[in-house]
Every structure is written in structure tokens, then in C-alpha cells.
């Protein structure tokens, strides 16, 4: 395990040139590079578990790319919705089961809670310190934003013509979309927790009550709604992983994305290393590599998501994040209101 000495901490603070900051937050760790010693120690452990909410195909691709780069370290992906990952880790920790090495959720509030519980290990990879905007990582290094997700609309281009497609949240209330929409669940998905919270805040719960009368098909995962419109099961995706709509479109499936006029819900997706990780070195190596330019470029090219790494090269075909009108993320509010959101949602949508 990499424990930090007081000297390391001071060195880190000095490197950042923020002595005042160092006084306020004494735990700020030094940025760490991938050293031969870390690789060696990680290989001795030989494996790691990665709990994540990202789409399974991408998560497995990420794991395989890592395995190819560091042979002898097997990545086991545990994929579920972010809220379900949160529930699983909570249930496991309550029974003293510390099985998770690295987690990637789609709900910043989770990392706030885990950090508060003292479950996370502070760890800042070198490239994060150099190439990530300060708002993309916890100053004490407990979590790092790995990907930036949006939850736009999507539609099946065989079933709906571009000019007929809904342009705004308000359009979805048109009776002509009754029975033609699919939506994911905030008790399962972190992206949808964010989008539900933001929609309710900006448009009012009243909006969701009206939407529920439109006979909306309810699935669980934000990665499922894009698949449902690709199957042609429903014409309109109300919320879900925008990146999968783009991926499916690029794979030749009849789908396209819509950025609603009122704003597109936003969810930044943080990763963290657990303090009691069973494979602490492999966990740090993976966390470090996942935020390197190499892995972040896979995120952009293969998964079609937005990267917080300032050296990744954009691949054409996706609208720039800066050009999208985004809703505002508010993890602190979700922290206190998540339970209320789930409760009201299940009252409105009956599941």
C-alpha cells in the first residue's frame, strides 16, 4: 500500500504552490506517476475489481486495454446502475466485505458520502494534476471525474422524421408521443438520478406528473434506453446515455440524438480508489491509467463520451460540450434529496 508521509504531503502542497491551501486541507496528496515499483506491486496482486456504471461493452474494453498494457493483472468488471453500485457497496461494507478496488459511479453525491465515511483513499495521478481542470477532481484526491455524461433525447429515425422529432421537454407532452417513449429509472441509474433531479428542479415535478400520463415505458438503466430505440421498441428516448445513441448511430443503426431546448441534463462521473481495497496497488495503477491520455482517448474514440483530460483529441461526429445548453449539476443537493427524488418518482411512475 502507498501510505503518505508528512513530507510527501508537504512536497505535494509545495508543488502546487498553495501553502495556504495546504494549511486548510492537510491531506492533499502529492501527484503520483506510474512507477516501475507500482507496476511490480500491482502485478504481484494480479487482479482488481472495477465496480462501474459505464456501459458494459466499454467497461470490458477498458479492462482489456489495461490488461494488454499491464499483462498479468486481470480486471473484473462489476457493472450495474450507479445507484445499484452504491447500494451494493453500502451493503457489502455494512457486512465488512471490502471487495471493491476501484469504483466509477455516475453520481457525484456517492463519492461525497463515501469520502465522509472515510472509505476512500486519497490518490492523485500525475496526469490528473497536470491536465485536469481543478473542478474535475477532489482537492484531497478522493475522487476524480473520469467522464462527462449528458442525458439528451434520442429517437428512431425510421419511426420519426427529423422535422417531426420533439425539440423540447415540453414537446414530449404532446399526445402524439403517448405510448412511444422509453425512460430509465433514477433508483437504478446515477445519470438518471441527475437528470430527474435537474428536470424536476428546472421544470417542476409537475412536468414529470404530466409526462407519466403519456404511458412511458420504464426500463432501469440509462444504457438500456438507447438500445430500446435502436431495437425500434420505442420511438423516443426521454433520457439515457447520449454516448450510446452516438455509438449506435455510427454503427449504422437508425437513431439520432436531440439536445432539448430547455437544456440537456448533465452528470459528471467520478472514480475513486477504496482505502480498504483488496488489491491496493493494482487499484492505484488502474485509477492512474484510467485517467491517462491513452485511456481517456479510448473514452472519446470508442465510447464517444466527453473527457475531462485537456489533451484528448476530439473525434468528429459529436457536438462539442461547450455548444450544448446544459442543465446545472448539483451533487450537494442530490446528497440531501436523493431519497425524496426516488420516492416521488416511484409515486409518479408507479415503479
Amino acid at each position, binding site marked *: 500500500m502507498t501510505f503518505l508521509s508528512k513530507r510527501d504531503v508537504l512536497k505535494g502542497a509545495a508543488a502546487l504552490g498553495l501553502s495556504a491551501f495546504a494549511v486548510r486541507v492537510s491531506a492533499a496528496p502529492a501527484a503520483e506517476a506510474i512507477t516501475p515499483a507500482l507496476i511490480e506491486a500491482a502485478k504481484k496482486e494480479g487482479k482488481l*475489481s472495477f*465496480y462501474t456504471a459505464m*456501459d*458494459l*461493452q466499454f467497461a*470490458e*474494453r477498458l*479492462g*482489456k486495454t489495461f490488461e494488454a498494457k499491464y499483462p498479468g493483472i*486481470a*480486471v*473484473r*468488471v*462489476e*457493472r*450495474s*446502475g450507479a*445507484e*445499484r453500485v*452504491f*447500494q*451494493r457497496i*453500502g*451493503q*457489502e461494507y*455494512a*457486512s*465488512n*466485505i471490502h*471487495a*471493491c478496488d476501484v469504483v466509477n459511479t455516475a453520481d457525484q453525491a456517492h463519492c461525497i458520502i463515501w469520502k465522509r465515511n472515510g472509505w476512500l483513499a486519497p490518490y492523485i495521478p500525475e496526469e490528473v494534476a497536470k491536465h485536469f481542470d481543478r473542478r474535475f477532481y477532489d482537492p484531497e484526491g478522493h475522487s476524480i471525474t473520469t467522464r462527462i455524461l449528458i442525458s439528451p433525447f434520442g429517437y428512431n429515425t425510421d*419511426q420519426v422524421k427529423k422535422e417531426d422529432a420533439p425539440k423540447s421537454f415540453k414537446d414530449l407532452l404532446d399526445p402524439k408521443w403517448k*405510448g*412511444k417513449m422509453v425512460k430509465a429509472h433514477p*433508483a*437504478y441509474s446515477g445519470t438518471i438520478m441527475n437528470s430527474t433531479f435537474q428536470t424536476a428542479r428546472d421544470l417542476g415535478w409537475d412536468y414529470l406528473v404530466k409526462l407519466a400520463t403519456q404511458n*412511458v*415505458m*420504464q*426500463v*432501469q*438503466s440509462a*444504457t*438500456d434506453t438507447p*438500445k*430500446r430505440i*435502436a*431495437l*425500434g*421498441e*420505442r420511438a423516443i428516448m426521454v433520457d439515457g446515455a447520449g454516448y450510446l445513441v452516438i455509438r449506435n448511430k455510427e454503427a449504422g*443503426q437508425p437513431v439520432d440524438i436531440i439536445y432539448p431546448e430547455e437544456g440537456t441534463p448533465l452528470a459528471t462521473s467520478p472514480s475513486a480508489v477504496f482505502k480498504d481495497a483488496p488489491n491496493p496497488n493494482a487499484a492505484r495503477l488502474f485509477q492512474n491509467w484510467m485517467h491517462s491520455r491513452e485511456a481517456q482517448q479510448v473514452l472519446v474514440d470508442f465510447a464517444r463520451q466527453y473527457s475531462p483530460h485537456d489533451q484528448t483529441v476530439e473525434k468528429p461526429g459529436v457536438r462539442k460540450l461547450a455548444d450544448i445548453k446544459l442543465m446545472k449539476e448539483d451533487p450537494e443537493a442530490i446528497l440531501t434529496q436523493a*431519497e425524496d427524488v*426516488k420516492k416521488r418518482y*416511484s*409515486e409518479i*411512475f*408507479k*415503479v
Partner: protein
Amino acid sequence: MTIALPSTPASPQRKYGVDFTKPVLYGFAAVLCVLIVLPLSWLFFYSVTDGKGSVTLSNFIRLFTDPTFLDPLMTTFIVATCSAVICCAVAAPMGWLVARTDLPYSGIIRALVTASFVTPPFLGAIAWEVLAAPNSGLLNKIFRSLTGAEADVHIFNIYSMEGLIFVISCYTFPYVFVLVANSLDRTPGELEDASSILGGGRWYTARRITIPLVLPALLAGALVAFLQAMTLFGSPAILALPAGFHTMTTKIWSLFQYPPKPELAAAASLPLLVLTVFLLRAEHMILGRRGYSVVGGKYGAPRLIPLHNWRWAAFIICLLVLMLPVFLPYAALFNAAFSPVATTFLTFKNATMHNIYFVLFELSAASLALKNTVILGTATATIGTMIAVIIAYVTARQAVRGWRVLGFLATAPIAIPGIVLGVGLFLSYTRPPFVLYGTLWILLIAFVTIALPSAYQQLQAAFRTIHPELEDASRILGATRLRSLWQITAPLLRTGVIATWCFIFVGVMRELSAAIILFTSETKVISVLIYDLNESGDLGAIAVIGIGMLIITFAVVFAVNRIPGFGQVRFRN
């Protein structure tokens, strides 16, 4: 049975060693008590406490006043009742055709019913999503292309209460079929002959003799079907949630979402438990009267009714019905496994090996889940068979005082629905002194408990076929009870034991409702993995894993049927 010697007279003749019989048996009784009593006690305790541990009835008040609980309760009742009625309406005529008429190839019909029996219900539900989702479902697509109907016109909507009832019936009717067919197989032909001799016509005989004789089995089948439909978790979770409603099992499961509400989950489990116990008592009372049909000595084989011109029509109707649980879903899984998008029709041009490659080489959770499933299947089958053999022996031979208690304990878990057992075990084993949550042990306990009643019943039936005088001879010659069991009875029972072992193994692979509450990331099993994949919409991967599961299952069932003299055993639950 009355010929069996009481245990005491044999004791003075014992020459070698100590007779471990009694300690072993009391040990088993104690183990069974812990298996059953511990989870149920915690369940009761939690249901009458609030989060802080003080006694309250508020959980039950909420359960019976809050519409978010009342609605699922009503839904469950409707779904279970309708499923039971449909199962009887389909299975009774089919059972009669197979057992009592000269239906051609009735062996094939029986085999296909067995196939729908062993198909995991959650897999069937997912396959039916591919077939009958209103817009993308293959059947609806065929309908639209045949009729030229508009894009959003559909004839089937699987995401509805009717759809759920249909899919549950598909995989529940075999329970009724087996009961009815077995009962008809056993009903003596002489009674019907007597009716004919006295001038009763064929249909008069059927109405006045055959149907009344089989009615108790049919009612019992209806109850079993009701229980199955009521306690199933997978199908409602897959079909009801997208349609926007809960059943009790999915509601209980949702109570474990963060922040978990174990008290409410426990309270919501109790109605299922109480209703199951009540219905099983009712079944017992109904079946208890069945004895009258087999009074007297040996009867001839039942007389087959000739169907004449209707033979092939009946056969084809049976095949058409069996398309629904077997042919169509299997074809849908095959389509989903090899086509680029699950609901695109497979052609030679678009066929892809992507899903197979993904499952075999990329899906990193699969190997651990497979390993866990194999370990649990083997361990559950071995331990479950051992316990069942010993208890079946004790009750069949009435070997110790209190054998009735052992028999009761071994059948008691049948009254505990899987998800209720899951909740009970979760509450029992996430706390000291037995912190088993997160290990395979808690799943092993759950699976053994679930498997025990049917294993016990199968083996007890097997013991009845072996006359006790063989063991008595061994004991007179000085062997202890365990030794005679080992040297005399065990070899005679071999086929029965192997069959039971295999059926438990197959049963473990399809168990979802207890596993969904008890798994952790390290102890995931295949059924839970499939459920996870369904939530994220990865139908192609599910199809590949599902086909693999079916191949293993059929290999096991086929192997068991090849064991000489054991073709008659079917699943019981």
C-alpha cells in the same frame, strides 16, 4: 411399512463399535431447525420492529394502507389466480391426452413439457420480450409484414399484465401437467371398464368416472400453480416493471434499494409466507382424499381411449401449445445470439459471432459467475442429496422416535417462497455470530433449503420400492444401521440418488429469487448475471449465456433419463 423392525431389539446384537445412528439423526434435526427456524425468526422479529429496534405494528399498518403496497398485493393475487386457471385449462386436457388416449408420439409431448419445466422462467421471459415486445417483437414484426399494418400496430404486448400472466403460465403449467398425468397414469382402468360394462358410453365414463378421480390432482395442481406464480421474481421483474407496475416479489426486492428498509421487506414477505402455508394445507387436505382411487390389489394398465380421426389433430394442437414455452422462445434466443440486433431477423448475411466472442473473451464477470454456479450446484446437490437420503431413510423405515418431525422439517421449506427465504437469510447472516453474507455459504444454505423438500420426496418414493427385510437381514448379522445403509441400501438406491443429485444441480442453475437478495459481487451466480445483463439491455449476451445454460440442463436431464429404470422421475417442486 409396518414390517420394519423397531430400532431397539436390534441393539443387543450389535458387536462392532458404537451405533452413531441417534447422534447423527439428532444432529440432522438440529441442523434442519437452524436452517428453517433461524431465518423465519429474524423475519418475524424484523417485521414487528422499527429501524431502531422497538416493537411496533407500523410496518403492517403501512403494508395494508399504503397504495404502493396494496396495489402490488392485488396485482399479485390477480396474476397468480389467472395463471393458475390458465395452467389448469391447458395442462388438464393435455395430461389426459397423453396419459389416457392413443395420442401419437405422446413421449415427445412429455419430453417437450419437461423442456418447458427445466427452462429457467426468467430466460423464458427475456425470450418473450424479444418475441412480443409491442414494436420490436419478432411476432409483431411478422404480423405487420403479413398484413401491411401501420408501424405502431401490434397484436401482442408482453409488457402488460396479460403478457406477464401468459409468460408465467408458459413455465408453470408443467407442474399441473405432471400432477394430472401422474394421477391418470395411476388411476386403475378397471373402474372405467366397470362403467363401460354397465353400459356407460365413452364420454359418460370420462365424465362420471375419470374426471372425478383426477379432480383432486387438478385442484392440487391449481394450488401449486398459484403458489409458483405468486412467488416468482424473475418474470415480473423483467416484464412488469417496464409496464409500470409491481408485484409483491419485485416490491420486496425494491425495498433493498438504498436506503434499505429490511423491516418493511420482512413485513411484506409475511403475507406470502402465510398464504403459502395456508394453500399447502389446503392442498394436503384435497390430496389426502386421493387414496380412494387405488384401493385394493393390482390393477391393469389404464385403458387408452381411441381418438380415431382426431389423433393427429390432437397431436398438432399439443405441439402448437408447446410452441409457446419451447420452440418460439428458443428460436428467439437463437436469433438474438447471432443477429447484430436482438430483434432483427437473422439471415446468412447479417449473422455475427460478436455476442459469442463477447461472452467468451470479454465478459469478465462470466468466469467467476460460472465458477460460483458450478461450485454451488455441486455442493448443494451433494449436501442436499445426503441430507435427503438420510431423512428419507429414517422416515421410510421409521428408524427413530420422532421421525415424523424430521420428515416435517425436511418438507417445511416448501412453504417458504425463495425471495422470503432470501430476506430471512439476509437478516440472519449479516450479523454476528454467523456473518455469512458475502460468502458462498449463505447461498449454499439457501439453495439446500430450497432443494430439500423435492429431493426428500423423490428419495422417499425411491425408498418405498426397497423392501426393508434386506436391511433387517444385514442388521441381524450384526451390522449397525449406518453400515447396513451403506452396504445394502445405498447400492440399491444408486440410480435414485444420482437422479436427485442431477435435478438439484439443474435447480440451482435456475434459482434467482433467493440469489438476487443474497449475492455480492464476489458470489454472483449465472442467473443473477443474466438478470444484470437484462437491466442494461444486453440481450445478445443473455442469449448466448442462456443457450449455454439450456445445453447443460438438457445434457443433465438426458443423462438422467438414460439411467436404467429411472425414466419416470420428473421435476417436483
